[in-house]
């Protein structure tokens, strides 16, 4: 055996698996398909606006040629170009008329460098949802199983937030919350008075508002309110695999990282029924090689992990390893995002703010809190948003030139409230990824076919979210209210919360993983990224991926200690 454990993927989930396994004394190999990134050194977060290449604007022809999908992401600028895949190098197939926007980066740290950092616990409203309304399969865990591990990951990662006592959005181990601005506070007051049961809170975000000793020891510093997070943060003030988990893994002396190594398949020994290692393709030389270990963790993102599982074919597993249930690749979910609404707020013209808070407010789910049946839809949605004063950019859509324009833009404009709904998408077996029969990428790996659409319930949630946003903005007395109904929400993929393609469940016949993220069919194979999710809830998922990764890694270490693995 080359290693005790192999972790495929170095992002949100892989970093956590590596940290926990290393800290339990296991010699761990992390396999990353993309290039090495050095924390700090490789970030452009110290550039002034006027120092950025093209002031941040990506060349239009290059976007059209190499990034037709990635270019649609709000966070893509010349300041972080290296953190996005070239679509031209990493194609996949979608059926005619059913686009899926797979937004991603292949590099050490993965999308933990680019995430929006909102971090919310799930509750039993979420873990019991499938059982109650019959969509998907019952989760094999409940909140009580996950709570200690949410505590564990929050303490280490550093989540700033306020304790609110909201049953369906449990409080956690929080650093001090960032503060809402005056208009957000007024909106909060208005919503909570006019719509009993609804709450507006400061977003719970993975930023160090007051670092702990443990975070300090890792070289992480306090948030400087620059809002340059998407460039990478040299202060290590937001949680990423590069600022936090991988350095923690590294200091144990048990970590080995290989980059430019593309996960091809998991190798299986039919005699023992165990995974024996991982085959990788060198991204540069295109040569294959194999690493062996006692346990394997797949943390390659929901779609990437499904691709590896499906591609791990043998006589024993002709449709892919751990896929006796035929559920690998199915039940692909995202969050329905881009449900936009905004309005202009009257007054507060003598108030402003200083610093660039890298986060906004959150309105947690308030519908169907009892999982009641017989309503127009099941599940629910939440909103993220913020209030700000219009800046100089408003000059770009208002008439005016000369001294008048300059003088006008010198003073901030009206207060604007903008919010976006995040709705839960039901797990449906037909939303799935498969391997194309013949077409392969340049490393010889079968291309993915991604087929994913919103369903009937999803559309009902979208309609309700628009209505609710509109009534909340109206109640606030907003003018110039804009509701994005006509253009509709962002399509599947834009939530960048892919999940569900190797779901957990109680029954090996209908699920891929058990309650410990362990493959029913292969006991030393674990999947802890978004693939494991049996439903999607409407909260941002990263905190749960962290939690499941840490929990599963410790369970695997326990099993190894007991001699069971």
């Amino acid at each position, binding site marked *: 055996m080359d290693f005790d454990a192999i972790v495929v993927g170095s992002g949100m989930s892989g970093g956590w698996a590596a940290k926990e396994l290393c800290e339990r004394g296991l010699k761990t190999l992390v396999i990353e398909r993309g290039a090495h990134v050095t924390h700090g050194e490789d970030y452009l977060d110290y550039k002034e606006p006027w120092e950025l290449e093209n002031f941040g604007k990506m060349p239009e022809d290059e976007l059209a040629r190499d990034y037709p999908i990635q270019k649609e992401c709000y966070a893509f600028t010349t300041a972080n170009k290296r953190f996005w895949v070239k679509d031209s190098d990493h194609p996949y197939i979608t059926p005619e008329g059913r686009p899926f926007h797979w937004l991603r980066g292949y590099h050490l740290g993965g999308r933990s460098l680019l995430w929006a950092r909102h971090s919310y616990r799930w509750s039993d409203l979420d873990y019991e949802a499938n059982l109650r309304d019959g969509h998907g399969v019952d989760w094999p865990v409940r909140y009580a199983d996950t709570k200690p591990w949410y505590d564990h990951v929050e303490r280490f990662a550093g989540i700033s937030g306020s304790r609110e006592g909201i049953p369906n959005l449990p409080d956690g181990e929080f650093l001090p919350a960032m503060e809402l601005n005056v208009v957000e506070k007024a909106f909060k007051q208005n919503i909570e008075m006019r719509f009993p049961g609804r709450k507006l809170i400061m977003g719970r975000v993975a930023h160090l508002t007051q670092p702990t000793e443990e975070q*300090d020891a890792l070289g992480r510093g306090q948030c400087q309110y620059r809002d340059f997070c998407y460039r990478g943060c040299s202060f290590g003030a937001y949680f990423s695999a590069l600022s936090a988990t991988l350095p923690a893994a590294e200091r144990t002396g048990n970590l080995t990282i290989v980059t430019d190594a593309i996960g091809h398949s998991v190798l299986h020994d039919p005699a023992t029924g165990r995974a024996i290692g991982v085959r990788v393709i060198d991204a540069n030389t295109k040569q294959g090689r194999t690493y062996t270990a006692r346990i394997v963790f797949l943390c390659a993102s929901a779609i990437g992990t499904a691709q590896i599982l499906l591609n791990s074919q043998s006589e024993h597993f002709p449709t892919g390893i751990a896929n006796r249930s035929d559920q690998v690749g199915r039940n692909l979910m995202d969050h329905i995002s881009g449900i936009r609404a905004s309005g202009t707020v009257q007054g507060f013209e003598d108030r402003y703010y200083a610093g660039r808070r890298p986060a906004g407010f959150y309105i947690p789910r308030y519908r169907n809190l009892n999982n009641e049946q017989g309503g127009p839809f099941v599940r629910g949605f939440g909103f993220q948003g913020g209030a700000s004063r219009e800046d100089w950019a408003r000059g770009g859509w208002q008439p005016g030139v000369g001294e008048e324009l300059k003088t006008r833009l010198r003073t901030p404009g009206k207060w604007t409230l903008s919010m976006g709904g995040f709705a839960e998408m039901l797990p449906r077996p037909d939303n799935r990824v498969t391997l194309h029969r013949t077409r392969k990428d340049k490393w010889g790996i079968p291309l993915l076919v991604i087929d994913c659409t919103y369903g009937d319930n999803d559309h009902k949630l979208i309609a309700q979210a628009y209505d609710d946003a509109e009534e909340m903005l109206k109640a606030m007395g907003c003018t110039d209210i804009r509701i994005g109904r006509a253009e509709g929400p962002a399509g599947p993929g834009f939530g960048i919360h892919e999940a569900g393609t190797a779901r957990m469940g109680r029954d090996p016949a209908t699920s891929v993983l058990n309650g410990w993220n362990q493959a029913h069919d292969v006991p030393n194979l674990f999947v802890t990224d978004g693939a494991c999710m049996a439903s999607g809830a409407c909260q941002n998922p990263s905190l749960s991926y962290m939690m499941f990764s840490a929990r599963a890694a410790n369970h695997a270490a326990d099993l190894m200690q007991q001699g069971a693995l």
Partner: protein
Amino acid sequence: MPDPGESRELHRRALLQRAIILVGGAAALAGLEGCDFAHAQFFSANQRAKLDRICDIIIPATDTPGALGAGVPAFIDAMMTHWASRETRRRFVSVLDEVEARAHSVGKTDFLALTPQQQIDVVTAYDRDQMLGPGQNYRPFKNLLLLGYYHSQIGATQELHYELVPGHWIADAPLSSIGRTWA
């Protein structure tokens, strides 16, 4: 045992130190980029003269430097080479042509041959028509002009306010204590 607060402060200072070094490096690079801007030549001499005048009219020098002082025409010229697609370049050239056409229709002469006040009148009327109408060519032009000005060092730090590393979030402050829009 060192006081954790003290070690945090030392750490913060180390990070800021590093920030300053990196900013210095970036500024050196920016200087080189400035040279590129100066040498890039997308627009003809006549187009560039019109561009200069239009930028100057839209963001004039007042108690702070305007678009010319901030190097906005050179920025737009460089962006035509380094950023714009063929379609975007066509739109930007069309803006110059449309302003020219308006000059001919109202003043019966070239835009550059008009008096300064006539030029201001032409651009003001053109801006109003375009911003109240579809403005397919002019809107991206005006947006890039404003970006080039307000994200230049002069625009961000002399005309408006900008802090690279605020170090704080003040959620509520009297506007009078800040005074100007954040860039």
